[in-house]
């Protein structure tokens, strides 16, 4: 099988626009959670979110005008703008600029989203009810479709290889990166731009996730304390938004052009719970099997894993189920393992989460440091695993695994290794 490496990174997160500013703030233990100010939350049980900081672009704020023509911005939901921004960052970081027909047709895009343009659907349905069908814009459909992130990115950069999208709720980003790596391994492409993008912070999505009893509602007055994976007081996740995109590349292709190699993607595993539409299977079997499958594909043993970026959403059920599955997986090596949830800082980016967290896993390898789990004051269960409470932990990280689990019982694990020839 052909080897696949990561040669470019890009992201837009609640901690800022760009990989390095976000990562610096993650390691500093900063939280992106705030009270929602841009729409009415008085009647919503959850009134907080981790929103991308908008601004003029200074201090790592996100200025949409720097990434997309204002005329196009009006026509699409924010997840497309975030995805386009993160993809351009990743491609620039990789130095890969396909210009010949051969280069263009072997470079593809695979970017997904969990719920896509739900905000625009909400707005258009109000227009439909109030003004009728003749007032629905011709850009309504293309501006909401999940695969239109891949579409816009391919058009901007002339990428004519496989053009694909993943929709697996909160596992989307991890599945996109894993599937894209396979397309390269199988020879369908030499380079893939892959990841996830999401913009779910609007009244309709908030109301829907509140109805699922998925969101934190006890910390509306202390937003930065709300996302607290593994802590006794956790009561649900904090909604996030943004995008994470990587450039994946066949190893020899990357070497031939002297590309900077961040890490090698060595394992990818998938599984289904076949249990419940929103709850993870209580025995953690789905999580266990997708991690096991990823390690088998990587040809490594559980004890080889130095760091796990957990799914760890801060929901009462999910965190402990994942923790138990990891304990079962690593057995006696548990005391050597570190695992943290960066959702404690940036909230849950749904379809972008797995991609952003894969990038954090790659940076953990680059910088030999485990990012912290914020707000872990009183763990709800005892575990020999180091959950990296409060502050980042410098340590050896040669192999990192990122977990993502989604509604519907869809699970994905991706394994990265420090690149060695």
């Amino acid at each position, binding site marked *: 099988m052909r080897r696949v490496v990561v040669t470019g990174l890009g992201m837009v997160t609640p901690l800022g626009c760009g990989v390095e500013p976000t990562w610096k703030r993650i390691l500093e233990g900063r939280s992106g959670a705030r009270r929602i100010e841009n729409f009415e939350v008085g009647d919503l049980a959850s009134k907080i979110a981790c929103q991308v900081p908008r601004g003029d672009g200074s201090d790592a704020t996100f200025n949409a005008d720097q990434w997309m023509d204002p*005329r196009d911005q009006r026509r699409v939901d924010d997840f497309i703008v975030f995805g386009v921004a993160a993809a351009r960052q990743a491609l620039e970081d990789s130095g890969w600029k396909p210009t010949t027909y051969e280069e263009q047709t072997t470079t593809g895009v695979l970017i997904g989203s969990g719920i896509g343009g739900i905000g625009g659907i909400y707005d258009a349905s109000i227009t439909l009810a109030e003004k009728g069908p003749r*007032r629905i814009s011709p850009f309504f459909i*293309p501006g909401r479709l999940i695969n239109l992130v891949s579409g816009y990115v391919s058009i901007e950069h002339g990428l004519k290889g496989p053009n694909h999208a993943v929709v697996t709720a909160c596992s989307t980003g991890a599945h996109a990166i894993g599937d894209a790596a396979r397309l390269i391994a199988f020879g369908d492409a030499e380079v893939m731009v892959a990841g996830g993008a999401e913009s779910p912070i609007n009244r309709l999505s908030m109301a829907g996730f509140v109805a699922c009893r998925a969101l934190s509602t006890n910390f509306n007055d202390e937003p930065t304390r709300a996302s607290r994976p593994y802590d006794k007081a956790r009561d649900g996740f904090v909604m996030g938004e943004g995008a994470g995109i990587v450039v994946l590349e066949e190893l020899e292709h990357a070497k031939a052009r002297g590309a900077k190699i961040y890490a090698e993607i060595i394992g990818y595993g998938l599984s289904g719970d076949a249990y419940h539409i929103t709850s993870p299977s209580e025995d953690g079997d789905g999580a266990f099997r997708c991690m096991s499958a990823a390690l088998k594909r990587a040809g490594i043993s559980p004890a080889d894993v130095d760091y796990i970026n957990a799914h760890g959403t801060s929901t009462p059920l999910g965190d402990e189920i994942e923790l138990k599955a990891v304990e079962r997986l690593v057995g006696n090596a548990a005391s050597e393992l570190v695992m943290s949830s960066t959702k404690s800082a940036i909230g849950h980016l749904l379809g972008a989460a797995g991609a952003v967290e894969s990038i954090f896993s790659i940076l953990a390898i680059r910088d030999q440091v485990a990012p912290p789990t914020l707000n872990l004051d009183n763990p709800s269960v005892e575990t020999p695993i180091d959950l990296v409470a409060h502050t980042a932990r410098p340590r050896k990280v040669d192999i990192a695994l990122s977990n993502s689990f989604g509604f519907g019982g869809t699970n994905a694990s991706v394994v990265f290794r420090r690149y060695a020839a």
Partner: protein
Amino acid sequence: MSDIAARVKKIVIEHLGVEPEKVIESANFIDDLGADSLDTVELVMAFEEEFSVEIPDDAAETIRTVGDAVSFLEKKAAA
């Protein structure tokens, strides 16, 4: 320039993101102002909204330039 012409011009500039000096009477939305078929549908909708008129599809197809739009809307206003 009539009030209608000024309002049409403003809508065209906003929706197509073009330089104001390019929006002359003879400018064709597709050939001169870079619009595609979806843009022209959206433009017609914007005219309908701004002038509170209904522009049937067969009439919309005859509106190809800035001048076409102005004269159509002036006739509607006079009617």
